[in-house]
């Protein structure tokens, strides 16, 4: 009887330890996270389309009224990332995520000059370098400083009804993730 009790107590304590260990390790070890799924669809800096349906999209966007595009970046590999897109979507917003998928920074078309997406992502070292001599291409950009060189940029565009499809498609097709 005491033996069964010991087994039970040890088992429950062990289960608690395993529970915490899995919880903490899951974000670190997950091979199905957003980065990994986007990596299977496109190279670094290659824009990938995101859709609300789970089947067609590597990373499902929650809202059925939204279409999106995203690209992965690694600032140590290719330098400062410059994300641009045309105008036209009735509403767009952009988020910068880190390697784990945590949202670091976001803004929408009201914040951007002239409603055009012009975003530069850099590490603090690269930003210091840029401040010394700002390239013309980045003169009007919104700068985002990140600690970790790897991450994901996601642009979401509102599609109120199917008649907006061509406009939104053109907007998403114009997303470019370039190295400076």
């Amino acid at each position, binding site marked *: 009887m005491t033996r069964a009790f010991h087994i039970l107590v040890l088992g429950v304590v062990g289960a608690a330890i395993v529970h915490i260990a899995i919880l903490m390790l899951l974000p670190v070890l997950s091979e199905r996270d957003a980065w990994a799924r986007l990596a299977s669809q496109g190279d670094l800096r290659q824009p990938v389309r995101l859709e609300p349906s789970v089947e067609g999209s590597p990373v499902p966007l929650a*809202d059925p009224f939204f279409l999106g595009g995203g690209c992965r970046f690694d600032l140590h590999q290719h330098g400062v990332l410059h994300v641009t897109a045309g105008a036209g979507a009735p509403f767009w917003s952009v988020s910068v995520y880190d390697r784990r998928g945590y949202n670091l920074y976001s803004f929408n078309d009201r914040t951007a000059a002239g409603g055009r997406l012009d975003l530069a992502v850099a590490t603090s070292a690269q930003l210091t370098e840029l401040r010394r001599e700002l390239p013309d291409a980045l003169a009007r950009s919104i700068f985002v400083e990140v600690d970790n060189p790897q991450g994901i940029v996601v642009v979401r565009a509102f599609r109120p009804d199917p008649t907006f499809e061509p406009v939104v498609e053109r907007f998403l097709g114009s997303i470019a993730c370039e190295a400076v």
Partner: protein
Amino acid sequence: MMRLVSSVGLVFILAIGGGAASVHVALDRLAGFDGLTVGPWIAFPNRGTPGADPYSKARFSRNAELPLGKAEGLAFLAAADSAGEPLRRACSYRIEGRLPAARFWTLYPSDAQARPLPAQKLRWPGLHSMQVLRRADNSFEIVASPAPHPGNWLSTGGAGTMNLVLTLYDAPALGNPDAAEVELPLIYRTGCE
């Protein structure tokens, strides 16, 4: 000797099996800890930020979610009506009230995995603020029902339970939300098939 080995084996099975199963259940069932609850609606403003709780972090790395940022919007989810009954796809609901200031919002029914319900033919999978007719005092009334309905109709259908997801986009008032100040619509059940 044999008893010792079997006891140790049993402890390991309990620990590993129990630990793994409890994480699985927790990530599937528990909503999260730092939620903002307003009536039947719940939102997670910190979800997907580095300050989120470990369960939210584990969940969205497993599900490859890329949550909305603070400047983008905030999603509220309702799994029950204002009386506390779970939302059923076979039932009709009246969604009535006002919303905090936002540039626009969308409302759609989703399944337990937070996927939008498949659209019925020729219907759009939800409603958004530009389609909705309002009363003179800016409040609105939406009927979520499997059967067509005059006025603002949110088409549902099928069997089982559902969630309603209300996402407010570009809502600066929700940047640092306080549950006491956020006003969201109420959900009344009006009948079932």
